């Protein structure tokens, strides 16, 4: 029966090659798969060694995917207005099937992602992997670090509870001290900046963290920042390949 199925045109149109364990099929397994195609067919052996890579970049990407999926599910139950936001959180935590699990996974994965990004950066630094020809990919990585922090920070406000509103208040209060752009920053007053026209006002959509801030952070958190992060991730992964694959000592670069 299964053998019959494998001979049909439909099956053959989906799976281009057999699964028999041959050198050729192992290679095809990678190049014929759009997702695995991110990888080269062969890598130097140290690249598969967790002691070298720590696996932190890969885990970060996995967590980003988890966050995207759980985040979209949460969006079905959440309205970003001061009137409903907190009510929706209560509803989610108490009445929605698997609601707490989805929210918990979203929050813990977010924390974990900040952690793994830092560790990934630590590893890349310690192996000197930012050195030529990978200088620019390190810069892209720094941008991704900043985007990760911004994503986490903007998501912090959305539950609209005491924890979120005050954490974001503390964080965004810094903006009022921005030199030249904030009303309490150096030269701010001299330039005619007030609480209602400086950079913090733009960020919050008001003079304090309020309903317009919630909407701003929501759109930034769910649409703008993930989109930008995705673009930079695409560049980041592509550059890993283009810059000669995973870093390694000179001798491992033979035959590429």
């Amino acid at each position: 029966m299964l053998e019959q199925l494998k001979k049909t045109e439909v099956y053959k149109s989906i799976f281009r090659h057999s699964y028999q364990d041959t050198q050729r099929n192992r290679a095809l397994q990678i190049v014929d798969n759009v997702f695995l195609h991110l990888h080269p067919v062969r890598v130097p052996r140290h690249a598969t060694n967790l002691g070298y890579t720590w696996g932190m970049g890969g885990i970060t990407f996995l967590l980003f995917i988890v966050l995207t999926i759980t985040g979209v599910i949460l969006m079905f139950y959440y309205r970003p207005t001061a009137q409903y936001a907190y009510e929706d959180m209560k509803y989610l935590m108490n009445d929605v099937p698997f609601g707490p699990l989805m929210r918990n996974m979203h929050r813990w994965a977010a924390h974990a992602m900040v952690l793994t990004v830092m560790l990934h950066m630590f590893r890349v630094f310690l192996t000197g992997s930012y050195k030529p020809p990978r200088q620019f990919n390190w810069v892209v990585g720094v941008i991704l670090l900043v985007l990760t922090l911004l994503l986490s920070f903007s998501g912090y406000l959305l539950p609209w509870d005491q924890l979120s509103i005050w954490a974001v208040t503390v964080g965004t209060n810094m903006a009022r001290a921005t030199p030249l752009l904030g009303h309490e920053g150096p030269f701010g007053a001299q330039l005619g900046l007030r609480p209602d026209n400086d950079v913090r006002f733009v960020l919050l959509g008001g003079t304090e963290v309020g309903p317009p801030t919630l909407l701003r952070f929501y759109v930034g958190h769910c649409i703008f920042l993930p989109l930008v992060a995705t673009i930079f991730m695409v560049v980041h992964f592509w550059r890993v390949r283009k810059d000669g694959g995973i870093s390694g000592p000179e001798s491992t670069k033979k035959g590429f």
Partner: protein
Amino acid sequence: MRQFLEILSKPDNLPIVALLASVIFFSWLYWVKAKKNDMQELPEEAKMDDKVQVWPYLVRTEFLMAIAVMAILVIWSVFLNAPLEESANRALTPNPSKAPWYFLGLQEMLVYFDPWIAGVVLPTLIIIGLMAIPYVDINPKGNGYYTFKERKFAVLTYGFGFLVLWVFLIFIGTFLRGPGWNFFWPGETWDPHYVAVLTNVDLSEYFGISTRLPDNTLNPAAFIFGAVCVFGFYSLSGVYWMKKRNDEFMKKLGFFRYSIVSFLFLSMMGLVIKIFLRLGPLMFGANPVKYVWVTPWFNV
């Protein structure tokens, strides 16, 4: 002590405990690998220069790691609920009010600097400084393997910045800063009525130059004193350059790269000096230093 353990076990603080544990583990791992590599001709990584097929050898590892991560995440999420406090209330300010944990190092900086430095200039310098690393580190060695011997300055500087100024300050900000952002040792109870009696002075006042004149305007002498301190500190880089500019290494580095490295390095060290100016006098019962340089527009 119970309160310290309570804060330690708050669900939102678990990532910090994980951060501390993993940073210690990975620093140790690095050290072991670097030492081993430094003692032999070829680094371990170079011995693994044969090629393996990504399918199955790499994909298998990725798959197992993904399963492990998902399992940990699900278990973590089943047993620990994400915090949800009372509904947002602008009229009720919690004490202490803390930013998300990864920004607590920066919030801790607010003790030592005005917000425009701690909250804006410092993060900007960190981001720019990180981005500049590949372009100012001209040492071609240590590319693609663990080593300490071949890049001591780079590893020590980054290690100090990351482990001490980032991770350790996050730890302090989360676990040892209580109401009013006052410092409490582990085991001390966070007393919301505790008031730290501090008489802050400016650095110039240690040298007998008062910051304000009797009519409460800025003393020009103090202004000049502060400017000399700040610019004098940064001009150390110029002194070092004049002394070493003919060295082989400095010639290769060039004046432009050197300026960036020395500016970023001195800024980082300046931060440490300011922390000591603030905390050091307290150990001797003297008054902590608030500002090094007071101007009509900003204070450093």
